[in-house]
């Protein structure tokens, strides 16, 4: 009984870590105007795990917050290329950095 209780407590701590939000940022070249932002948002909204999308025209960055697994690099790069832009670098952020 004691073991089951301990396992339950351990699981309660682990679940938020394994299924929580993940964040990544992508540096993008070719972002020029508000229409570009809309194109990217519409493209990334189609990816199921994406929960939140932020775009910075000032820093030419895309920030994705996902629920669970991050989309793989190839999917991210192809989505950006299909929207008409050039992906430069993908950085997975520690979640504390996005607050």
């Amino acid at each position, binding site marked *: 009984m004691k073991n089951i209780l301990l396992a339950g407590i351990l699981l309660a701590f682990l679940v938020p870590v394994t299924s929580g939000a993940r964040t990544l940022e992508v540096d993008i*070249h*070719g972002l*020029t*105007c*508000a*229409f*570009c*932002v*809309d*194109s990217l*948002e*519409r*493209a990334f909204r189609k990816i199921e795990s994406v929960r939140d999308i*932020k*775009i*910075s*025209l*000032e*820093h*030419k960055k895309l*920030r994705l917050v996902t629920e669970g697994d991050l989309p793989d690099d190839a999917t991210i790069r192809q989505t950006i*290329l*299909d*929207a*008409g*832009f*050039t992906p430069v670098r993908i950085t997975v952020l520690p979640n504390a950095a996005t607050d």
Partner: protein
Amino acid sequence: MGLRSLVALPVDKGGSVLRLTLESADEAATDVLIANLAYGIGARQTLLLGLPYRVDPGGDDRSGDGSLLYRHIAWQRDSFAGTRRLGLLVGALASSQSDDNPAAQIGAVYTWFENRNEFDADLVFQAGSGDRPDAARYDLSWQYRLHPERYPEWGLSREWHGVIELNGRWRDGEDVLHQATVGLQWVHPRAVLEGGFARDISNGSEELLLLSTRFHF
């Protein structure tokens, strides 16, 4: 993208842009509504459709020449500050009037975009069949982002762009008609409202008022 030509418009794969433009000519006393639709087949392949319709004066033969263009982005270089790209255009021009002959269209469009400045240049040649005369058009457009001076860290603010253009229209057997256009664009992520004033600088007689709206979906 400028006021007088749609061919420089960037369209994403699967994306569409609808533009409705009202051109009101002072001396000719005509109002023409031009409907344009652009569809992104791929990131570098776009279909561009255009159909003018004379609103005023009424009567028969209100529909003008329908235009279909395929644009292929043959070269593109993106940078942090902007982009440069060259597109090739090929298509056809067909009239709704059965006695008018169609024309083949071929051309090119170049875009240079850096920070607050965008420059677009396009040239389209129309080779007429039968008794339709050959024709051509060019558009040189400079757009400057008036507001905001700097974008916010994340997200968007509404944008205001000033536009200055030099446009030319030619038909075989006639002189080139050059026009100067000035205008203003209000840019929202999903829609653009724009207006301008064009003046014939070849003989100074014709003036055009332009009102246009674009929807991105």
